[in-house]
């Protein structure tokens, strides 16, 4: 039905203007989203390179590939780049930026120039970070624990801290833009209860960005000031408290986990109904659970500190609240699964990622319950169990959501279809590679391997599991590179995408692929509920390669 939309030479946001200036000075949210996609993908591969070094070093027990200092820098910069320069901006700044105005029926975000500013701030931060990397890097771990970071490390801590401080403003401005857009820019008839769950989840994410990011920013400034001006805030010999840093750091960095996972949940909440041809099961519960996660997520930070020297009573309260925050996550998993019940399910590429997400996030979430359990956390804290847990959430959850979303909206973003069979193959490779990489690390952790160990020659019994993990990582790398290749390939050789290849319900699918600069020829008036799949035809099979 929609194939007429790709007829010759229709103006869209990509061919509206030409030349590098038209991109660097654009205020179009869709073009800014593309700028972000390119930037964060570059940072992802730099962070991935450090992951490669880590896995190769751990292939053998002896510390033989890198020096100890090089290894420490490798895991520190892997973590900092992946968290602050990939995961935090990943879905919000790309898919969120591209889709939220269209999903609410607006021409752009509320503050288009602030949106461009936030990309420049991100680039300035990334440039400073890369300069820090080139001038020797940083070895504090991504967590910057004091007094190691403030008094003992001889690396470029100040530069790294400032880079992350600056990146924080990019995040704050993006969050601000989303909150105002959702409140003020909704099209006529687009009530809160008609918002796609993608928007609900991003709204919750934006609240965390606005309220949490200033805390990490000021905390890292304190570390930088302590190093440069010798303040003594975290120095116990002058009445300071190193554990205070951990409170401040995790006050942001635990909610930051939800900054990374909520947008992924946003993506999954769109994909599952579309490929099941059903309204999402329990819309209100899925929407409200996002808000509950954002709210309770601010109250659980000290569960990272059960062995850090906090009182047993504080630990008791934070453990209890941690169990509470697990409930809304469980609600989401059950609702997505129930959405498939009596649906009309197709195993297209985005759906494969979504199903992978549900399974891996379930494992990631449940192992989080292990860590919230006081008596068990004492043993597994700071071991590979923790590493495995948060990679199940951040890679199995956040990255699979990102990849699933990139595939789902690729026809809209690029105006081209990707090759479906390659897409499915890559999704399966990512799933297998991921599990092979990280599942052995749960076992390693319980056996007792601490995180951040460069050399384990006194514990050669850990090698077999590490070899499995490294083997898995190489499969995972193939799974990451494949979409890079065929998505770029599709830009030139892919079939032109119809306006609505999946016959999905969101407003973004009611405009052209790729959309015109101001998204809609005329502002839509919404007279229907979200996810009315019973009123949509099935997608044309021509889009599914045989």
């Amino acid at each position, binding site marked *: 039905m929609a194939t007429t939309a790709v007829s010759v030479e229709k103006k869209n946001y990509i061919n509206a203007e030409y030349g590098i200036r038209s991109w660097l000075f654009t205020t179009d949210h869709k073009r800014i989203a593309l700028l972000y996609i390119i930037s964060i993908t570059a940072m992802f591969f730099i962070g991935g390179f450090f992951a490669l070094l880590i896995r190769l070093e751990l292939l053998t027990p002896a510390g033989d590939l890198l020096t*100890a200092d090089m290894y*420490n820098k490798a895991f520190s910069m892997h973590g900092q780049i992946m968290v602050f320069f990939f995961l935090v901006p990943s879905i919000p700044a790309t898919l969120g930026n591209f889709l939220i105005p269209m999903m609410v029926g607006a021409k752009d975000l509320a503050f288009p120039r602030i949106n461009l500013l936030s990309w420049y701030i991100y680039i300035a931060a990334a440039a400073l970070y890369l300069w820090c990397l080139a001038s020797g890097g940083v*070895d504090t771990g991504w*967590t910057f*624990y004091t*007094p190691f970071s403030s008094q*003992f490390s001889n690396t470029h801590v100040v530069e790294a801290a400032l880079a992350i401080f600056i990146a924080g403003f990019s995040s704050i401005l993006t969050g601000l833009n989303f909150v105002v857009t959702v409140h003020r820019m909704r099209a006529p008839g687009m009530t809160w209860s008609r918002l796609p769950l993608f928007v609900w989840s991003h709204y919750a994410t934006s609240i965390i960005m606005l309220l949490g990011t200033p805390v990490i920013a000021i905390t890292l400034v304190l570390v930088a000031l302590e190093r440069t001006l010798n303040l003594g805030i975290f120095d*116990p*010999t002058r*009445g300071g*408290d*190193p554990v205070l840093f951990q409170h401040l750091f995790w006050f942001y960095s635990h909610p930051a986990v939800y900054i990374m996972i909520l947008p992924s949940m946003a993506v999954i909440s769109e994909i599952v109904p579309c490929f*099941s*041809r*059903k*309204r999402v099961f*329990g819309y209100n*519960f899925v929407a409200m659970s996002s808000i509950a996660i954002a709210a309770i997520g601010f109250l659980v930070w000290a569960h990272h500190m059960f*062995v850090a*020297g906090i009182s047993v009573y504080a*630990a*008791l309260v934070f*453990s209890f609240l941690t*169990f509470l925050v697990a*409930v809304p996550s*469980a*609600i989401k998993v*059950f*609702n997505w*699964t*129930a959405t*498939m019940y*009596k*649906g*009309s399910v197709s*195993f297209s590429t985005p759906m494969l990622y979504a199903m992978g997400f*549900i*399974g891996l996030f*379930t494992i990631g979430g449940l192992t989080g*319950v*292990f860590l*919230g*359990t006081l*008596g*068990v956390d*004492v*043993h597994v*804290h*700071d*071991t590979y169990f923790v590493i495995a847990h948060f990679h199940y959430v951040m890679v199995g959850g956040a990255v699979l959501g990102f990849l699933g979303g990139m595939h789902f909206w690729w026809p809209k973003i690029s105006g081209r279809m990707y090759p479906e069979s390659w897409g499915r193959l890559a999704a399966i490779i990512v799933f297998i590679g991921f599990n092979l990489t990280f599942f052995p690390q749960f*076992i390693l952790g*319980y*056996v*007792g391997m*601490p995180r*951040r160990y460069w050399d384990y020659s006194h*514990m*050669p*019994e850990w090698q*077999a599991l590490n070899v499995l993990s490294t083997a898995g990582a190489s499969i995972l790398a193939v799974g990451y590179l494949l979409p890079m290749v065929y998505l770029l390939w599709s830009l030139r050789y892919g079939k032109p995408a119809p306006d609505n290849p999946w016959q999905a319900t969101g407003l973004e699918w009611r405009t052209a692929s790729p959309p015109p600069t101001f998204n809609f020829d005329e502002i839509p008036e919404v007279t229907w509920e979200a996810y009315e799949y019973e009123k949509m035809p099935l997608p044309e099979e021509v889009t599914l390669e045989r």
Partner: protein
Amino acid sequence: MFDNFPLWPASASTQSLPVDLLYIFLIVISAVATFGIAAAILIFGMKYRRRHGREAQPIEGSLILEIAWSIIPLGIFMVVFVWGAVLYFDLRTPPRDSTEIYVVGKQWMWKLQHIEGMREINQLHVPVDKDIKLIMTSQDVIHSFFVPAFRIKQDVLPGRYTTLWFRATTPGTYHLFCSQYCGTMHSGMIGDVYVMNATDYQAWVTGSAPVGSLAQDGYTLFQQLGCNTCHNMEVQGRGPNLRGVYGNPVQLEDGRIVTADDNYIRESILSPAAKVVSGFKPIMPSWQGQVNEEQLNSLVAYIKSLNPPPVGAAGTSTNTPGSAAEPRD
């Protein structure tokens, strides 16, 4: 074969089995949940796979199901929460008559000081079936004392004491790790815990021939540093008499009452002005930077030994609050 491919850590303390049981319980419920979800996804995917002539049935949701899958997980979580909390309180509460060992972490080694005077580096010899309490501090950055076979771990902080306790059940040699990243040779900050039966342990104590106990070292240092000129243990001097102070409440100049535990004594040596005892002037100089962590430990051990026996009991049993050791003005 399984020697080179362990799937489970050795179990060698009274805390190993309780932690393992809870861990196994968590694995079972997690496996049930994960396989349940995975099975539902696969079954729904197969059974309701897109076919010609069959349409999806619109279903809004179900309040009963929503309540059920909120309340049931919450109920299970609460069981786990209480179970884990009980274990944690046990792990964090050393028995009263534990044998105390002082631990100093520094980049990148563990130094251990026994009350009897033995000193070790990256090795810890302990008798089997005895409660051992570790009183730990760091000379530089944060470290973490981790013995997987005992299922115990505690961060070791600069500037204060943290404690950890265990009761080893099986003689043998077990790994000791630093589990908090502490710089270049973090992965080299490892050692061995030797759990020995009573006779072997006695032989080891005799063989290591300590010159004097930790408290005696502390006494010598106390004289050398001139502490005794103000802290006279027989008559009231310019500073409080320290006999019987340890473990008891102390009335401060600002009206607060604090317990004179290890951290209080440590702070009173390094930052004497922070908590001045009622009736005394803040005239004591700080010893920050002038005594190292091991010397501090010996001073603390000496002041503890001034309590009426049994020495080493961390309780307040023998003295009543405001006893003779408490100065009055």
